[in-house]
């Protein structure tokens, strides 16, 4: 893991003092809410329906057990005993008092964490593959470059008042687990001539009311040019991104309106002019950061691990959990373990302080003290010895964290929705809960294989419904909550946006509609084809017929 040096620490500490003073000035009336708003937003503080909300960055999803314990402590001491993991590898606390936020930030700074730029019109938390550094088939560890970008984007003097928020994601593996193409800038690590590291740069992806899949602006950017090239993109966006209309201010609109060829030409021209005096990324700094992500001290383990197969054979539930919640580790004898925050009937992504403390303990015991946060709102223990899987499974089951549904129908992604959020049109969480209850049967979930259901409570699409295989969008119809269904979205390298299948469903009818979609898939699929593949092959028509009859 990356450990702050004294410079990193000083910036975070000074930022806490700065915000403490800003909060003091807000509370004594020196600052109006209008003036305070961008300041609090740049420190992760939102004003929601019932209270302030604090969003804390978990850069590229990596947490130490010590950091997780601090989050548990914050949940207990300053909030209502739980936190909500988001779709961008952040955690949100929904009930902090403004006057106490500086104290929370000071507690976070004590464990090398912060809430800088988790909201507002600036760079947001940089996200990456949650299996970084442990999965096989990885070209290079994306955390190295994600940390480079975290530092470069923190308190950037030129780009802290952008037209709109700005999200960067990075993937270093052959499979994209970071939804790279739905970001303002996405980076795929590639290998060029002579094995030198570089990036395919994609730009202009995004969700919200006008979703776009990002387009390639550069096939191969050498690593030393990463920051100067990003600055060139940002300078073009800062100047030409629309500031007259909030809904057209994201870079995706600029890229779309100009066309990718014209936008690319503008960026290349800017880069040619500015690359020598803007950001540099010297090889020794990359090397310095890389040392922080060196593989931990794994034990040498004889494989296959004795007893694991027998245990799977004996215990059907354990076998099922291994099938769905375990991913292959690059180190022989080890496993990547997913902890499901999607227990049937619970709020997707929520974890209690007790769960967080317990997970920290399990991370220390079984995973070299490390935890990951996924953009699908689950947690990961990245370094588990296969010999420990059975004991870990039992411990997780006692904590309700062993639901064997990773990537299956009830692994539902949902935003906080109208239960918390002032932007929402409709509730998300109760819909997620009811769908999960309806689809809870484990054998049936296995039958329907990989199936992504995403729910957003409004067009801002925090639940990523556009790229859900089944996407559900909450809309307001004359004061009543309705839900629009989209099919065929996908967030990986072959990303696609879902298509609206027809008129929206009432809250009462949406669960049955989802079930109808799944029945149609089972009837239409060839062999054990995945939902997304069936959907791409047959189109919307069979689903329409099932949901809306012959008219």
């Amino acid at each position, binding site marked *: 893991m990356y450990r702050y040096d004294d410079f990193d620490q000083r910036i975070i500490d000074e930022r806490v003092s700065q915000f403490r003073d800003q909060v003091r000035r807000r509370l004594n009336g020196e600052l109006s809410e209008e003036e305070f708003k961008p*300041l609090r937003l740049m420190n992760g503080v939102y004003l929601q329906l019932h209270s302030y909300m604090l969003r804390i960055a978990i850069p590229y999803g990596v947490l130490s057990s010590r950091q997780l314990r601090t989050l548990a402590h914050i949940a207990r001491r300053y909030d209502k005993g739980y936190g909500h993991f988001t779709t961008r590898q952040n955690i949100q606390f929904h009930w902090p008092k403004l006057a106490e936020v500086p104290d929370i930030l000071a507690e976070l700074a004590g464990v090398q964490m912060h809430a800088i730029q988790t909201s507002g019109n600036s760079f947001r938390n940089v996200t990456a593959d949650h299996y970084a550094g442990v999965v096989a088939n990885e070209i290079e560890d994306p955390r190295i470059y994600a940390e480079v970008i975290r530092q470069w984007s923190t308190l950037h003097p030129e780009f802290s008042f952008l037209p709109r928020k700005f999200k960067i994601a990075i993937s270093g593996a052959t499979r994209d687990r970071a939804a790279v193409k739905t970001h303002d800038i996405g980076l795929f690590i590639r290998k060029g001539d002579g094995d030198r590291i570089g990036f395919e740069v994609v730009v202009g992806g995004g969700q919200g009311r006008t979703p776009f899949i990002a387009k390639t602006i550069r096939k191969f950017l050498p690593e030393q040019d990463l920051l100067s090239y990003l600055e060139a993109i940002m300078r073009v966006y800062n*100047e030409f991104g629309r500031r007259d209309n909030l809904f057209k201010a994201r870079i995706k609109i600029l890229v779309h309106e100009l066309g990718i060829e014209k936008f690319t030409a503008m960026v290349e021209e800017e880069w040619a*002019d500015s690359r020598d005096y803007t950001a540099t990324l010297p090889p*020794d700094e990359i090397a310095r950061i890389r040392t922080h992500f060196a593989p931990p001290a794994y034990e040498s383990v004889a494989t296959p691990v004795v007893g694991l197969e027998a245990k799977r054979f004996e215990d059907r539930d354990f076998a099922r959990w291994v099938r769905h919640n375990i991913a292959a580790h690059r180190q022989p004898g080890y496993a990547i373990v997913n902890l499901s925050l999607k227990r049937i009937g619970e709020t997707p992504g929520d974890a209690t302080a007790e769960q967080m403390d317990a997970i920290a303990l399990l991370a220390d015991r079984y995973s070299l003290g490390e935890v990951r946060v996924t953009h699908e709102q689950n947690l990961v223990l990245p370094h588990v010895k296969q010999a420990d899987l059975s004991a870990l499974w039992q411990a997780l089951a006692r904590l309700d964290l062993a639901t064997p549904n990773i990537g299956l129908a009830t692994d539902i992604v949902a935003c906080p929705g109208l239960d918390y959020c002032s932007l929402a049109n409709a509730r998300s969480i109760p819909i997620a809960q009811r769908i999960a209850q309806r689809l809870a049967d484990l054998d049936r979930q296995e039958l329907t294989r990989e199936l992504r259901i995403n729910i957003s409570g409004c067009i801002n699409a925090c639940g990523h419904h556009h790229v859900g295989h089944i996407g559900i969008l909450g809309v307001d119809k004359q004061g009543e909550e309705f839900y629009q269904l989209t099919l065929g979205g996908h967030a990986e390298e072959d990303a696609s946006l879902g298509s609206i299948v027809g008129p929206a469903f009432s809250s009462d009818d949406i669960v049955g509609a989802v079930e109808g979609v799944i029945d149609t898939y089972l009837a239409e699929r060839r062999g054990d084809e995945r939902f997304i593949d069936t959907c791409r092959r047959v189109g919307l028509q069979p689903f329409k017929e099932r949901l809306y009859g012959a008219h």
Partner: protein
Amino acid sequence: MALIKAGKLVRDRWRFLADDESLPTEVSIVISLERWLREQSALLAWDAPLGIRLKAGQHPKAIAQHIERFALIALEFPKFTDGRPYSYARLVRQRYRYRGELRATGQVLRDQLLFMHRCGFDAFEIVDSDVLAAWCAAFAEISVFYQRAADRQPTVLELRHRRDPTGEGYTAPAQTKGTAA
């Protein structure tokens, strides 16, 4: 309206000249880009100090060719949320190598001063002059920076290297234009 330069309140010796006013004989005046474009040859020949004020949508490339003619460039923040002048300021300093006064005008708030200063502004038109100490403190709230900018502060990268120069060497690799794949 007050003016901060180098941590002090100073008297503003510049006067903005409306486009329909005729050129005075004595004082330092600040003109609009429109006037500059209209009366450029006369203004180049005129030998009094000259300043120019650019609105947020007016890119400094419009004055790049004669940038040494100006002793003051004022960039306007129509709203503090409009971040375009930060980019313009860097370009004025780093691309066009302007050395004169670069002034932030418009909605200039205390909590933006540090970013403005880093991008190359060295003069700030502010509304509230009686809390100068607080305004000036804002420059020092953050003392180290990750990014290279126009203020020539050493970056964290450089500080790291100074402390540990035995590493691979901080010197950035020679960047040859156009060789990137």
